[in-house]
Each structure stands twice: as C-alpha cells, then as structure tokens.
C-alpha cells in the first residue's frame, strides 16, 4: 500500500512540475496526418463532419507518459458538412454560434498510462462557452518516427447547447455525438 501511494504521489509531483525539459517533451503536430471529426446520427443516418482547422499541443514522452499534457483548440467555423450552405447554417446561433464562440477547446488535467499503448485521459472540454469534465481512453503508437494519438470521445450535444430551439429534437439529430480524433506529432 505505502510504496504504491508513494509512487502515486511521485507521479503527481512529476506531472505537476513537468516541463518540456523534465519528464515530458513538447511535440510538433503534423496537420496533414491529424484530423478531428464529429460523428452524429441524423434520422439514424451516420454523418461525419470534419473540423478543418485545429491546433493540438502535446507534451509526451513515452518514458514518462504520466507527465504528458495535451490541449486542443478547434476552430468551430471550420466544420465541414460537405456543403457550403450547411456549413454556414451550423455556424449560426442555434448551432456553434461561431461569432461568439469561435473556439472549442480541450485541456487535459490528468493523463495516466493504462497498459501498453494506452492512456486514460481526463480533462476539460469547452464548447460554446460550456465546460464539462470528460474522460476518454487514448491509444498511442509510434509511426514513422512520430507518435500517433487516436481516440473517440462521446459527448451529448445538448449539454453544450449545440442545436437550440427546434433542433433540440433528438429524433432528428441524435443527442450523442462522437468526437473522433487522430493527432500525429513528433519531436522533429
């Protein structure tokens, strides 16, 4: 019990005082090999919409995964439904209200190793001015000298007021939305 606790405390300190020089390393993301998309069901039809513009800042060192940190900023106006008219519509007030809330963001609060190539991430997700605590599993693997982080985060769109008024009807657009992401980042 005691050694375990000591270890937990040690890792807590490590993550609290982690800097790019000790424990974690700031990685450079490769936008061409990174993607963030929202998958939702519209009248039971699965539809995927990509966010074309986002930035991810990841501090990760495979030797010290517990010291890792991640934050992601997504330009809400960059959501692409495959139709310019629909893209304009979802930037309006009832949906993302991109004029008032141009960014959605995620900031990790804790990242814990959960077996080979797996991490459990907890953090704060902010969309349309609403912040919620979220946790999700993340896989990490090395690919061509870089790290590839992949995961899915299911959220409820109505918890963030995405789709107001008549769009609250979940028989039209389901409440559950899965945020699918893949971030490729490396030291070079």
């Amino acid at each position: 019990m005691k050694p375990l606790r000591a270890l937990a405390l040690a890792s807590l300190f490590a993550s609290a005082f982690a800097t790019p020089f000790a424990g974690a390393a700031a990685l450079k993301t490769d936008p061409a090999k990174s993607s963030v998309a929202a998958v939702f069901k519209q009248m039971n039809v699965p539809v995927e919409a990509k966010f074309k513009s986002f930035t991810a800042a990841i501090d990760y060192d495979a030797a010290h995964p517990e010291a890792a940190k991640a934050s992601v900023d997504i330009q809400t106006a960059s959501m692409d439904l495959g139709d310019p008219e629909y893209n304009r519509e979802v930037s309006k007030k009832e949906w993302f209200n991109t004029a008032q809330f141009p960014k959605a963001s995620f900031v990790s609060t804790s990242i814990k190793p959960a077996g080979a190539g797996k991490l459990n991430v907890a953090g704060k997700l902010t969309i349309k001015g609403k912040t919620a605590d979220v946790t999700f599993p993340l896989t990490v693997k090395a690919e061509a000298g870089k790290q590839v982080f992949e995961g899915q985060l299911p959220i409820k769109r109505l918890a963030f007021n995405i789709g107001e008024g008549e769009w609250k009807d979940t028989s039209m657009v389901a409440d559950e939305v899965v945020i699918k992401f893949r971030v490729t980042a490396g030291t070079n």
Partner: protein
Amino acid sequence: MQRYSLPAIVLHWLIALLIIGTFTLGLVMTDIPGLTPTKLRYFSWHKWAGVTVLALATCRLLWRLRSTPPAYPGTMPAWQSRAAHALHGLLYLLMFAVPLSGYFYSLAAGVPVVYFGLFPLPTLIDADPALKPILGALHYWLNMGLAALVALHVLAAFKHLLIDRDGIMHRMLPFSTK
C-alpha cells in the same frame, strides 16, 4: 381488348404515384433555404421513396420479362407502335437510372441511405466532393428527362382515349370499363 395482367397494372399505378410524389418532394425540399428539420425530414422521405421505386421497378421488370403485354391493335400504324416501344423502353431505363443516380449522389455527399431509418443500405462508394456535383446534375437532368417522357406518355394515352378511341388506355386502367 385484352388487358394488362393484374400485377402489371398494380405495379404501373403504384410506381406512377410514387414517382409523381417523389419528384414533387424533390422539388419542394431543394427549394427550402438553409437547414431546417422539415428539410432534413423531406430528404429522408425522398430517399426512402426513391429506394421503394427502385425495388418496385425491379419487380416490374422481372414481371415484364416473364409476362408478355397484350399486342397493339392492327389499326395502329407501325411507326406509332415503334415509338410506343421506344418510349416504354426509355421509361423503364429511367425508372432505374433516376433512383440510382440519387442513391449515388447521396453516397458521394457522404450521407448513406438508411431505409425508413431502420435498414442501412450498402455504402458502395465513399464520400467524394468532386463526384458530388456531377451526380447532383445527373440526378437533376435524368429527372427532367423522366418528367418530359412521362408527359409524352400521358399525352399519348389521352390521344388513344379521346381521339383514336381504340381502347389502348383501357388496357392499363385500374378498373375494367366493360
């Protein structure tokens, strides 16, 4: 005069009503500006109806292959029966081409078709932003072609009913007039 077989008559009128309804819904839904729940609902209904037309057209083609329709009366000029056969052939072609072009248009747009919101139909092609406008235009013009041919078909039927009075239209009416 010999009438069409009952399955042929039932399929003809069922498909006719569905095509008119689906075509009209297509014009209405694409006229709705922006994005509204009604618009999305109409799009789904339109796709379900189109898939139904495709399924019924398949039944109809199979029935047509095994059941020969009644022959035209000897009084009908040869060019007219050739024209009628050609028109019917094109209508059959479009009964397939119109829903199929719409189906692939939807797939190219990245929206698979889930029949009645229950049965996911095969995603035969991936979303393709370059192909999408081409299939959209194809679907539109095939529909305009179908509308023109249906108009011709209806005009010809009424010509036989009102001018020739040769009983040709009666062969396909849902009720016997004699």
